[in-house]
Structure formats: C-alpha cells, structure tokens
C-alpha cells in the first residue's frame, strides 16, 4: 500500500501539473500505465497517461463525458479489442506484464481482471448458471465445487440471502439492484484480482446504489477496484485515490481526500466544483 505522502509529494508533480502517479519507494503497483495511448481510428481517446494503481485500494476515475475514462478502464482488460479501429500505444502493465503483449491470453487476463458495467447485464439463464458460467468456461465441472463457488460469490456480493431459495429462477426476474449484485457475483466467481466498474450504479436507485457502495468498501484490501463514475460524491465516498481525466489526458491523480478538498490543478478544481464539464 502506498502512503499519502508518497502520492502527494510535490516532487512527483510533472509537466501538466499532475502527479505522475508512480508510487514512490517501491510501493506495489497493480496496474501501471506508462505513456499509454488509446486511439479510435487514429484519433486519440486516451493520451499519454502515466499512473500507477496500487493493489487492494479503490481508485476512482472521474472526468466529463468523452474524457477517455471508460476507454482507459476498458483497456485494462482489453475490452477495447472488441471495438473496430481501436489501437493502443505505450505501456499498460498488469502485475508487471504488458496487457497488450503478444503472449497475453486475453481469456486469462479477463479472468484476473473482472468487469462490471453500467447497466446490469445478466445472462438470460438461472441465477446459478450466471455465476457458474465463468468457472465452467475455465474448466470446472464438479457440481459440488460449482455449488461452493456460487454460494461464496453470492455471499461476497451480499445477494445470498435474497437468492439462496431461488437459484434456479431466471436472473432477469431479479430487481435492477439485485441484477447488478448478481453481475458482481458473476465477476467474483472466477476469483479475479482486479474489478473494473464502469458507472456501476448509474442505473440504480439510491438504496441499491448504497448497497453497491457498501460492497466496494468491503472489497477494499481483497480486490483492486477501479471505478469510473460521473457521481463525484460517490468517488469521494468510496475511493482511496482519484484520477481526473480531461480530453484524454490525466490532469491530476492523488488521494481522494486531497483531490476533493485541495486539488492541485485549476482544471480539477473547476471540474469538481462544477465550474465546467
């Protein structure tokens, strides 16, 4: 874990006035971008981003629509590969391995780097089969092992009590908030180390949102969480670190408390106080 002083050290501010985001003192970086770019048909959506996301902490990525935050998030488990015309440049590392390296098995990468989307997207299958889907793909066939994974995943996603008596029901019968927790359970079922969350509560009511935020808090230390959110109060509530992206560039990266009380950069100040964006 990196200390606040290591992140906020003035010596770490680089040309654009942002922290370069590289944890000092050999702190463990789980995900590291090094002058990383993403292009759509040659047009940069993420530009020259350098930052290090520490293990076991919650990192928020904020910024106005079109700033590249979702693109950056999707780059981490190569979801952008599915978008025609998407290319990358520079370094993006996961546990020191280049995410876009030639030897990377994308299936394995996505097992270790799970993702939860804005809109709950359960498969039109039973609750049980939704959770067991990933483990089955990875070769687990033993029923009792799958039973254990389903129960553990639903417990971790705080859905077990609501779902345990209806595991064979169609997942589409769950409420929106339950569906989103099911999607989280589904992501957890393959035992990921990193959880990417792309506006995971924007389609949910306040109570369901609070349950997801509580889950994020419980995941701290167990998983590395990277969350994209338009809800700045949510970023302030749930995350340890906050990165502010604007027009593809990383403007500021620091402790959430610092970013929301004493932002270093005027652009960050203007954005978080609602003066633009």
């Amino acid at each position, binding site marked *: 874990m990196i200390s606040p002083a290591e992140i906020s050290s003035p010596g770490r501010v680089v040309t654009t006035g942002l922290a370069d985001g590289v944890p000092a003192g050999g702190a463990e970086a789980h995900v590291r971008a090094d002058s990383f770019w993403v292009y759509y048909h040659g047009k940069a959506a993420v530009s020259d981003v350098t930052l290090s996301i520490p293990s076991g902490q919650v990192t928020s990525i904020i910024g106005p629509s079109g700033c590249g935050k979702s693109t950056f998030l999707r780059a981490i488990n190569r979801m952008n590969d599915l978008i025609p015309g998407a290319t990358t440049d520079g370094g993006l590392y996961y546990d020191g391995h280049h995410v876009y390296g030639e030897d990377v098995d994308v299936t394995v990468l996505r097992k270790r780097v799970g993702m939860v989307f804005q809109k709950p997207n359960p498969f039109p299958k039973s609750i049980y089969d939704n959770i067991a889907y990933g483990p089955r793909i990875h070769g687990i066939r033993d029923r009792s092992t799958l039973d254990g994974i389903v129960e553990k995943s639903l417990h971790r996603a705080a859905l077990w009590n609501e779902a345990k008596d209806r595991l064979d029901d169609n997942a589409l019968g769950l409420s929106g908030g339950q569906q989103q927790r099911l999607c989280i359970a589904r992501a957890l079922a393959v035992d990921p180390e990193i959880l990417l969350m792309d506006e995971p509560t924007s389609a949910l009511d306040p109570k369901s949102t609070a349950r997801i935020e509580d889950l994020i808090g419980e995941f701290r230390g167990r998983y590395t969480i990277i969350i994209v959110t338009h809800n700045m109060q949510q970023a*302030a509530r749930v995350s340890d670190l906050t990165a502010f992206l604007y027009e593809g560039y990383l403007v500021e990266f620091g402790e959430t408390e610092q970013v*929301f*009380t*004493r*932002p270093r950069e005027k652009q960050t100040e203007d954005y*978080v*106080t609602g003066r633009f964006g």
Partner: protein
Amino acid sequence: MSMHLFRDLENVRQELLAMGGLVEEAINKAITALVNRDETLVAAVLEGEEVIDQKEVDIAENCLKVLALHQPVASDLRFVVACMMVNNDLERMADLAANIADRARFLIGLAPISIPEDLIGMTAMARKMVKDSLDSLVNEDAALAREIIQRDEEVDETHRLMYQTVQDHIRQNPDTLDEAVHILSVSRQLERIADHATNIAEEVVFMVEGQIIRHQSDAGEMPPK
C-alpha cells in the same frame, strides 16, 4: 458551478461581510465609549449585540443549508467551512466588545483616570488587526492574513506588560483600585479580540491555500515556494 450554489455562496459571503462590518463598528464604539466616557455609545454596543447574535445564527443556518443541498467540494467547501469558523469568531468578538462597553459603563460611574498609553496603542493594534482580518477575508489575501498572525504576539506582549503598569498605578494611587482593575479587564478583552482576528486570519489561509495552520509556531511565515 450551478447558479443555485453560486447564489447561496454569495449570500453567505454578503451576510458574513455585513456581520464583520457590525462587529468592527461595535469594537470601535466600545473603545470610543471608554475613552470619551460616552454612555450613548455604551448603550449602542449592548443593543447591537443582540442583532449580531441573530446574524450569527442566520449565517450558521445558511452554511448548513449550502452543505446539505449542494455538498460543495474543494475551494467551495473550504469557503463554507471557513465562513462557519469566521462566523463564530465574529460573534465572540462582539461579546468582547460588549464586555469593553460594560467596563466603560463602570468607569463612567467612577472618577476619571488617565488611560495608560500602552492601552491606547493596544486598541489601535487590535482594531487594525480586526480591520485587516476582514480585508484579508474579502480579498482572499493569504499574505495579509499571515502578516496579521505575526502581529498577535505584539498585542499579547503589550497585555502582559499591562499587568505591571496597572500594579504600578495601584501602588501609586491605591484609591483608584476599582478603576485600574477595569482597565486591566479592558486590556484582556482587547487581547482576546486580537486572538479572534488571528483566528480569522488563519481561516483565510485555510480557505485560500487549503492548509490548516492553527497551533503552528511558524503559522505567520510564508510557505516555501
């Protein structure tokens, strides 16, 4: 920033400045009442205290409203938090001005005595600190605020010396013991007014720079570039 937040923040700012003006006026009137033995001014200060108390409550409520409705962050959050603290300091300063007015009322009822020169100097220093602290708030001037913080030590030292001055006075004029005690009390009120002006200056530094500098021996020094 939404127009609603802008409007509510501006409202708090205007109310706080109006209150600052009233408090500055109360201090000036209380001191003038003391020096000129003016009972009308004593009454004006004591009556004005209620108005200031009500303003303090109004401002606190408006700050809470901004926090609850807009959940401000960064400079907006620091502004609201600083306003709440400044509001409290201003109300305490008004109480101290009322205490000085009370002392003036007692002194008016006693035989006239000469006001020690150091006390006159101290009133000038304290009044300037109050005025400058409000100016630093209006202009978001952290450099001026830091300068005010440095001045507080001079007022404290003058107050410490006042004990000796008053003791000497009592030894030489034992029949004016009551008057001398009131004078010492006025010195104490002025020293505390200067402390609150220092608090306001510290809150201005927090508002502008985001640094909490309370309880720091080098609070008045400029931060390294």
